[in-house]
Every structure is written in structure tokens, then in C-alpha cells.
């Protein structure tokens, strides 16, 4: 078993290093194939471990070697595979495998094809470290590792130049990459502080030991740790107010968006909350706060998706919104439901993104949906896949999203947090609307792209075969809900619905489905027949507010980045140079001036020297006399 664990963990690393060997040479198809195969190996190993755990529910531990052993701190490279980890591993490696294969198509003409695979596999390795580590510092390795890989991959097309926000709201890939890294670092500080608190109060960082000794902590301390860890989660999972980087991260190549910024990395925050469930279960008030924030993000992000014209940004906002759902579930204590939605979301959202990648290729990297339309004719298969994924995302029976999202709504209802329920319910309608607004704008209606002289073409057939696993899972994953619950609750707390909820469940399902369907219908009537733009709406305050992301990026720039730059300049020019350094030079100059003045006494005239000498003599004599007299 341990060997399988190591294979699952290190196959991506080998893949990354192998691809790195070719990083500076011409495109080599072998690199893509070997990398995809190795990630596939990792998937097989992960899936085997998952099945093994389903048979024999006993977590597997492995200890690789010592890492930081100082004083009383003893941190090892320790790995564990339990139910939660196994689910995460399987989801991550499955999506990764598909994305790797897909990248052979998407990046086929890119100059840095080999380098891309190196980064992508490095990301998978980091993600595996993140989910498999058995201690908080190991998690932190993966946590930072995925951050760096995300930085590398978002900024993959580093040669593009900075634009103004009107031309490109993300400014440039390298700008977006830096923004993502720095925002994540802000949150990482929170995580690090949480780790420090755990270490100094419990003397260990291993999950098992930490969660076994939680009762040694005071309530206040647990709240502090819970908040600190959640701050870390907020950065990785792009929760408000650290959310702006995710939409800008769409500057990366689309497979990256599918893998990192939809299916895996951004769910790391949810994973952390799920992993720390013994902690959050004892501090329900923090959990409630998490749920409220998640709910807010769900509707907040969905609202921005309503009006956006950028193909990828719409999906990015929907990711943000779905992450909000997951946090709502986890915060309310339904950890397995959050994990279930995480997995389901990974499948259909990756599918949606990769479909969008096909569209982008067909449209020669045009992202404005207002310039598309009627693509169904040319790209039937992509239409099918993206339509399926959108249905799943909207939560239509019998697709995966129906089961996972509906359960979250039931949880919200069951907890008597009707406010949360209502907002999430509303968001479900908005989700359906913007998803299908996108599908209809791209695939139905008039063929607006012809005006721009674009000749779309469908992707290769093998690409659709490669995407098939995701499509199938997006359809059938929901039927495994019962099995999933049994499997996951061996590790996670069981969540019981009350009798009252059981009675209401059919009404809830009908109400939810109703709003989802009406969202789709609304989108159909508005956009399926072609795009009719209404300048009055587009110039309204609400529309502009939403399409400018509530002006938050501009606010951050004017309230944080620019003042920081100005303050830095002041610190350098005005303080460091004019005060600190000038003081030092001032002291030196004073001494020099003093020398200049006293030099006058050295006039070379013997008789004045003799006068000084005599004066000194008399002074010394007087002092001597005085000291005798005083005694």
C-alpha cells in the first residue's frame, strides 16, 4: 500500500522533472505523452487506494524522512491516505490526467510546449503533497507549491505587455500572476500564524495528534486558530475580500484555468476546512461565519457573472460562486456534503473550461462572447459537452450538480438558517441564468463572428474521447451520493437531517429546480435568438457596477497598491536618504567641520604655540592647586 502511495505522489514529480529536461528545446511530443502517462499512473494508483479504502477503511500512513527537527519541533515528510485524502487524490489526478491529455491539443503550437508540461506536472505534485501530508507544515509545502505553480502557469505567456484595464481587465499575464501570488501570500500568513499557535500550544503539527488533543485548548484559542486557518483558506479559495486574483488568473492558458483555478487548487481552502473538521465542529460560531461568508461570495460572484462578456471570466466567477456553496456547507457542519460538491464541481467545471478552451481555439483566442454566436453548427460536440456541464452546474436532475447542490440547500434549510438558504436558492437561479446565457451566446443565435473574419473549426475527435470521463462523471456522479456519504463519513462527521427537513425535501427540490429551470428559460428567451443589446441597460449603474466587478480591483489599486508604492518612495527618498543617511553624513560633516575650525590653532607660529603651552601649564597648575585645596 505504501508503494502505491509513493507512486501516486511521485509520478507527477518525475513527470515534471522529465519535462524540465526538455524545457529549453523544441516541442517534443514525447514530453506530452510521457507526462500524461505518468499522471495517469498517479491516477490509477490513487483510484486503487480509494477502492482499497472502500474495502478496508483503515488509513494508510507513510513516513518518508525527517524534515525540520529542531528543539521540540519534529516535522517529518509524513503522508497519510484516509477517506478524505483518497477522494481528493482521485479527483485531482483524474482531472489532471484529462487536462494533461487535453493540453497536448491546446498547446500543440505553443513555443514552450515542454515547459508547460513541466509546470503542470509540478502543480499536480504540489497538490498531492497538499492533500496527502499528515501534518500542517506538509500541507503548507503543498500550499505554497501550488501557489508557485499557479504563478508560473498564470504568467506562462510572460511576453505579453501590460495593458490598461479597459483593454484587458487582468492587465497582463505576469501582472495577474504576481497579483495571485501576493494575495495568496497575505492569506498564507494567516495559515502560518495558525500553525504557530497549534505548535506552541500542542507541541505537534500532525493532524492526528492535534485533533486528539484539542480539548487541551481554551475556547478562545480554538477560535483564534480556526480564524487563522480560515484566513489561509480564504486566499487559496479566493473568498471575499481576497477574490480578485481568481478572475485575473484567467490570463493563464485554459487547461491551467480548468485544472488549477476551477477543479483543484482553489478547492484547497475547502479541503483545509474539511480536514480541520474536529476543530471547526467545536467552534460552531466560526463555522457559521464561514457559512455566511461563503453564502455572500456565492451570490456576489454570481452577480458579476450575470453581465460579463468574457467567456472565461464568467466561468471563473461561477467557480467562485460554487466555492461559496462549498464553504457554506462546510461551515454549517456538513463536511461530507462540501466534499461531495467539491468533487462533482471539479468534474463539470473542468469540462466546462476545457470546452471553453475549444471555443477559444476555434475563435483564435477571442474571448468576447458578444463576438461569437451560432457556433453549434461548426462545433456540435463542444456544444454538447458544454451544455452538459452547464446543466450539471445549474443543478438539473439527474446530473451531478443537482445532487450536490441540492444537498447543500437542504443543509441550509435543516440548520434553520433560512437566510443562507434563501440566498443560495436565489444564487441557484442566477447560476442557471448565466451558465445558459453563456451557452446560448456562444452556440446559438446569429453568427456574429463572421464579421470579424474568423473561421471556427472543431477540435480533434480524440480530444472529445479524452474529455469523455469528465462528461460521464458530470452526468452520473450524483447517483453515487449514498455510497459517497458512507465512504466519506467513515472519516468525517455524519450529518443527520431532521424529521422536518425530510418532510420538506420534495418541496425543496421542486422549488430549487423551478428557479433553475426558470433561469435557463430566461436565458433562452433573452439570448437564444441572437444578441439584442440594449444601451439603456448597459449604461445603467447596476450593469456598470457588476461589469466592473463592483469597482473592487480599482479600489484595491487606489487604496492599497498605489499608496504602498507612494509610501515606499517616501520611505526611501524622504526618510532613508534625507533623514537617516543625512544624519550619519551630518555627524561625519560636523566632525570634519570641527577639525577645520580647530585647525586654525595650528598656525605654524612658534610663539603662539608657546602661548598655548603656557596657558595649558597654568591651567594644569590651577587644577592641581584646586584639587589640593578641595581635599
Amino acid at each position, binding site marked *: 500500500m505504501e508503494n502505491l502511495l509513493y507512486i501516486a505522489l511521485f509520478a507527477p514529480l518525475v513527470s515534471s522533472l522529465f519535462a524540465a529536461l526538455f524545457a529549453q528545446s523544441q516541442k517534443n511530443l514525447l514530453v506530452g505523452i510521457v507526462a500524461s502517462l505518468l499522471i495517469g499512473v498517479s491516477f490509477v494508483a490513487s483510484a486503487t487506494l480509494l477502492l482499497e479504502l472502500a474495502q478496508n477503511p483503515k488509513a494508510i500512513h507513510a513516513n518518508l524522512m525527517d524534515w525540520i527537527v529542531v528543539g521540540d519541533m519534529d516535522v517529518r515528510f509524513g503522508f497519510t491516505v484516509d477517506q478524505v485524502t483518497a477522494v481528493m487524490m482521485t479527483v485531482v489526478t483524474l482531472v489532471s490526467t484529462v487536462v494533461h491529455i487535453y493540453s497536448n491539443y491546446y498547446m500543440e503550437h505553443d513555443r514552450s510546449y515542454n515547459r508547460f508540461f513541466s509546470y503542470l506536472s509540478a502543480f499536480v505534485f504540489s497538490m498531492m503533497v497538499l492533500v496527502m501530508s499528515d501534518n500542517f507544515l506538509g500541507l503548507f509545502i503543498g500550499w505554497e507549491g501550488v501557489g508557485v505553480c499557479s504563478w508560473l502557469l498564470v504568467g506562462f505567456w510572460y511576453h505579453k505587455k501590460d495593458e490598461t484595464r479597459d483593454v484587458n481587465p487582468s492587465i497582463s499575464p505576469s501582472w495577474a500572476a504576481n497579483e495571485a501570488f501576493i494575495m495568496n501570500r497575505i492569506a498564507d500568513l494567516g495559515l502560518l500564524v495558525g500553525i504557530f499557535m497549534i505548535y506552541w500550544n500542542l507541541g505537534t503539527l500532525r493532524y492526528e495528534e492535534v485533533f486528539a488533543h484539542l480539548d487541551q485548548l481554551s475556547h478562545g484559542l480554538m477560535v483564534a486558530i480556526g480564524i487563522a486557518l480560515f484566513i489561509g483558506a480564504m486566499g487559496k479559495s479566493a473568498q471575499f475580500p481576497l477574490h480578485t486574483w481568481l478572475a485575473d488568473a484567467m490570463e493563464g492558458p485554459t487547461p491551467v484555468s480548468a485544472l488549477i483555478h476551477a477543479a483543484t487548487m482553489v478547492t484547497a481552502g475547502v479541503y483545509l476546512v474539511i480536514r480541520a473538521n474536529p476543530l471547526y465542529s467545536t467552534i460552531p460560531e466560526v463555522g457559521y461565519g464561514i457559512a455566511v461568508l461563503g453564502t455572500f461570495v456565492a451570490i456576489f460572484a454570481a452577480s458579476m457573472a450575470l453581465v460579463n462578456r468574457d467567456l472565461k471570466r464568467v466561468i471563473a466567477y461561477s467557480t467562485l460562486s460554487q466555492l461559496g456553496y462549498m464553504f457554506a456547507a462546510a461551515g454549517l457542519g456538513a463536511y461530507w456534503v462540501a466534499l461531495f460538491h467539491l468533487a462533482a464541481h471539479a468534474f463539470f467545471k473542468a469540462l466546462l473550461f476545457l470546452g471553453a478552451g475549444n471555443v477559444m481555439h476555434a475563435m483564435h483566442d477571442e474571448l468576447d462572447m458578444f463576438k461569437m454566436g451560432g457556433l453549434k453548427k461548426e462545433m456540435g460536440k463542444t456544444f454538447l459537452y458544454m451544455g452538459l456541464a452547464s446543466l450539471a452546474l445549474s443543478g438539473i436532475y439527474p446530473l451531478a450538480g443537482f445532487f450536490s447542490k441540492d444537498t447543500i440547500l437542504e443543509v441550509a434549510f435543516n440548520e434553520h438558517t433560512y437566510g443562507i438558504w434563501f440566498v443560495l436558492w436565489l444564487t441557484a437561479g442566477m447560476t442557471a441564468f448565466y451558465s445558459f446565457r453563456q451557452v446560448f451566446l456562444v452556440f446559438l443565435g446569429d453568427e456574429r463572428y463572421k464579421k470579424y473574419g474568423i473561421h471556427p473549426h472543431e477540435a480533434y475527435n480524440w480530444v472529445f474521447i479524452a474529455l469523455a470521463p469528465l462528461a460521464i462523471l458530470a452526468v452520473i456522479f450524483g447517483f453515487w451520493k449514498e455510497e459517497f456519504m458512507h465512504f466519506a463519513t467513515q472519516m468525517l462527521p455524519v450529518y443527520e437531517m431532521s424529521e422536518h427537513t425530510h418532510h420538506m425535501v420534495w418541496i425543496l427540490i421542486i422549488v430549487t429546480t423551478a428557479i433553475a429551470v426558470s433561469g435557463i428559460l430566461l436565458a433562452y428567451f433573452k439570448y437564444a435568438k441572437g444578441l439584442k443589446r440594449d444601451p439603456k441597460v448597459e449604461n445603467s449603474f447596476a450593469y456598470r457596477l457588476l461589469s466592473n466587478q463592483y469597482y473592487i480591483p480599482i479600489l484595491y489599486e487606489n487604496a492599497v497598491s498605489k499608496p504602498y508604492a507612494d509610501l515606499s518612495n517616501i520611505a526611501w527618498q524622504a526618510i532613508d536618504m534625507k533623514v537617516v543617511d543625512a544624519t550619519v553624513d551630518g555627524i561625519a560633516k560636523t566632525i570634519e567641520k570641527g577639525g577645520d575650525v580647530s*585647525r586654525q*590653532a*595650528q*598656525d*605654524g*607660529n*612658534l*610663539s603662539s604655540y*608657546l*602661548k598655548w603651552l*603656557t596657558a595649558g*601649564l597654568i591651567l594644569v597648575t590651577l587644577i592641581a592647586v584646586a584639587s589640593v585645596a578641595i581635599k
Partner: protein
Amino acid sequence: MTLTLTHYLVLSAILFAIGIAGVVRRKNLLMLFFATEIMLNAANIAFAAISAYIGDLSGQLFALFIIAIAASEVAVGLGLLILIYKKYGTLDLDKFTVMKG
């Protein structure tokens, strides 16, 4: 009236003061020489007087040393003076301000 130690010491002090005044006031190198000689001899008187007063000969011994040193100093010093006079044509101290700091 007998001559006590005080009288000698007063004489020594007066001579010394005269010497100092000469050192401070005079600008001529030769006069400075005289002034230093006066000061040395003021010290000699004090040495000899105290030596006699406490009955220890080493004071007078010192005085003899000083006389010897003063003599050699005069020999060297006067030689230098003559050289300086030959070179600059004056012994006025204010003219020799070459070594400035």
C-alpha cells in the same frame, strides 16, 4: 633675618615667571632662548634649595644634570639659530609659519 627655604622658592618662582613672560611675549628666537635658560635656572635654584633643606643630595645632583643639559642645548640651539639666520636673514618667530596644520 635668615634666609629660609621660602625665600629661595620665591626667588625661583619669580625667575620662572620672568622666564614664562619672556617665552610668551618675545618674538625673537634668541630672546626665547634666554627666557628658557632663565626658567631652567629657576628650577635649578629650587632643586638646590630643597635639596639642602631636606638634606638629600640628589636634588643638587639633578641641578648639575640640568646645567649640563642646558649647556649642550645651548650649543646645539645656537648652532641651529645661526643656520636659521643665515637662511632667512631674521630671527623673528612670526616669519617662520611654514608648518601649518
